[in-house]
């Protein structure tokens, strides 16, 4: 089946959903969800870049003979960026916990000590 550029479109849509959430939602946790969505979109985009039609995973252990393999670099990059995403999400959520502790709310409109 020919799916054309659908994977790229899906990645772009994920990024856009995330951006929408980031820009228009007022809850800190939802902002974090938005960022995570963008991250997922970017990771998906990276890993789709490496696909070669009918390629197998680039591992030689018990691999079928004489098959072309998909590109390994995007997989390595995606691994790196997933771990980075995990780290940033954990830190963001910790900040959210502390903001809740200090302000008693997660509403962006009420967390505005620093302005101007």
């Amino acid at each position, binding site marked *: 089946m020919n799916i*054309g550029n659908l994977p790229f479109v899906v990645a*772009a849509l994920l990024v856009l959903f995330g951006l929408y959430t980031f820009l228009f939602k007022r809850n800190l946790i939802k902002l974090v969800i938005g960022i995570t969505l963008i991250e997922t979109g970017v990771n998906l985009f990276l890993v789709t870049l490496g696909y*070669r039609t009918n390629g197998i995973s680039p591992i*030689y252990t018990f691999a079928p003979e004489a098959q072309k393999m998909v590109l*390994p670099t995007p997989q390595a990059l995606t691994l790196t960026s997933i771990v980075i995403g995990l780290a940033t999400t954990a*830190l963001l959520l910790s900040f959210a916990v502390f903001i809740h502790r200090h302000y008693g709310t997660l509403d962006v409109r009420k967390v505005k000590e620093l302005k101007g």
Partner: protein
Amino acid sequence: MRKALLLVIFLFVSAFLLLGVADMRSFGEPQIADMDDYYVAHAQGEVAVNNVVTAVVFDYRGFDTLGEATVLFAAVVGILALFRKPRKEER
């Protein structure tokens, strides 16, 4: 006002990204892959591992992995710092 501005930004970025997708090369057919072909062909000989991705992660691009480990370390240290117990006079 603020919302309208954000909407303009959002629409702008949307158009930007979708334009990019439309202009992107077709899925599953990387045009230039000489670096990756090199990895696939030489990982077994140079690094002596069967898993090419591991060869890239820990050998050819090992420094990225060190950076990635550092990122995780920084997050753990940062979270430890946030949840630490402040001294009495600091509260």
